[in-house]
């Protein structure tokens, strides 16, 4: 049995309580909705792209601690990165929470995002952690329709 405190680490609880970049970005030139119909988690992601660089990023919405903390940490991680760098993080993060990438054994660029690796022990919560990343992925691809985890 995995200890529940490995999932709800202090850093995650802190991001849940005080999410970073939790605001509507007035300078945004891209906006993307993300929705998890299973649990009703909803988020709007705002991106200010400067060419291929994510110059600024913000989000708003409601959801569980995991989804909120994940969105908060994601915004902190990708701000200032290029589209390609963010896509690499999306791919690595996605594989990490699905248990396909072990950040302790395999080379990766995840840094602090590995705090969320505990999610892989809770299959029902993987979608909570990855909602914001799917939304970012869609925003970078410039898709028009809202993202759904279903």
């Amino acid at each position, binding site marked *: *049995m995995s200890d*529940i*405190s490995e999932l*709800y680490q202090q850093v995650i*609880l802190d991001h849940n309580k005080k999410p970073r970049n939790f605001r509507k970005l007035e300078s945004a030139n891209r906006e993307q909705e993300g929705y998890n119909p*299973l*649990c*009703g988690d909803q988020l709007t992601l705002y991106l200010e792209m400067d060419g291929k660089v994510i110059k600024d990023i913000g989000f708003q919405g409601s959801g*569980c*601690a995991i989804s909120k903390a994940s969105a908060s940490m994601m915004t902190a991680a990708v701000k200032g990165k290029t589209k390609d760098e963010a896509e690499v993080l999306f791919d690595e993060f996605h594989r990490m929470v699905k248990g396909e990438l072990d950040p302790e054994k395999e080379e990766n660029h995840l840094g602090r995002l590995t705090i969320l690796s505990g999610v892989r022990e809770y299959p029902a919560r993987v979608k909570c952690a990855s909602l914001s990343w799917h939304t970012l992925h869609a925003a970078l691809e410039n898709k028009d329709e809202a993202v759904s985890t279903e």
Partner: protein
Amino acid sequence: MQAQHEIENAMPAASDKLNIESIRRDFPILNLKVHGRQLVYLDNAATTQKPQVVLDAIQRYYTEQNSNVHRGVHYLSQLATREYEGARVKIQRFINAAESHEVIFTHGATEGINLIASSYGRKFVHEGDEVIISAMEHHSNIVPWQMLCEQVGAKLRIIPINEKGELLIDDLEAMINARTRLIALVHLSNALGTINPVKRVIDIAHSHDVPVLLDGAQATSHLKIDVQELDCDFYVFSGHKVCGPTGIGVLYGKSQWLESMPPFMGGGDMISSVSFEKTTYNSLPYKFEAGTPNIEGAIGLGVALDYLTGIGIDRIAEYENELLDYATEVIGSIPGVKLIGTAREKSSVLSFTLENIHPHDIGTILDQEGIAIRAGHHCAQPVMKFFNVPATARASFSFYNTKQEIDTLAEGIQRVIEVFG
């Protein structure tokens, strides 16, 4: 085992209380360990567990009776048909329907509602007509009506609720008019636990010659259902919420309605004769049962209802009310807990929120303690919107639950509060 219950329960015991220890032994899954803890199953509104007699009946069907029904002259087909039709009669008695052909097997309450929306809807609901539902419906009693209304150009009207989660029945009378074709109402709300005053609704509706469909998915395991006394026109429920198997359900309809409605699905078993020029439909109930049915499901459901009857629905209801009262007090008094749904007439469901902690986080932490609850919108998003919450945590009780399990839930909630500091 069922016989044993009947004997125990028939004995003039010191009190008329249920013997919960004995009942729990009938449900093998209740012994399960989850994450190293004793399972505390409090998600009965989603589905109930199955007693050994139901599991045995399904096993017996496939080892001794399996064949297709209504088709064969051979021994097994006749045996399977007898068991399948026997189950129909058991259901007829359980809900006190006047005729066994008023009992239609479906795959669940959802299919039952869709059948009525499609069949009754095609025949009787036209452009400009109206269908009335309530603000506390499950999606399965909203979406089929939206689909119908969109198809034919009819209007869907909603009976409002108050902040306790009670139906504002006084608004109903003014809502009914010459274009009202049907009222479809939940008997017992899955998200709030509210028991609706269905008899009064039916009386009001009938005084305007409007038929009433009751969604009994949640009610059937907690309340005594007598469709003749209620005088409802349609009643639907699911087998898996009354200790029966999944994939089987019941639509009850008054003969005169079912006779006048076109078939829902076409196929085998629902016809009398077929030629490329003309097909004649079979009589009730077969007109509405196209294709090979869920035979073991029907048989299992019959046995499940026998099991509940053996214990006694009235005694089940009394004990479950005791559990709900206890849970309301114990869980409701935890600082930060807010109960959603506080109707005066209520049963078996305790929906709540806990400060700013999202129900999914509550659900995950409780799960690690072996406690199964539901966290989410309970397929009732309009209800969540009314109470202005994205989701709730929901503990729902059955007669095999105990007050100790509710204490364990209370300890689990304390653990959630600890984790979130």
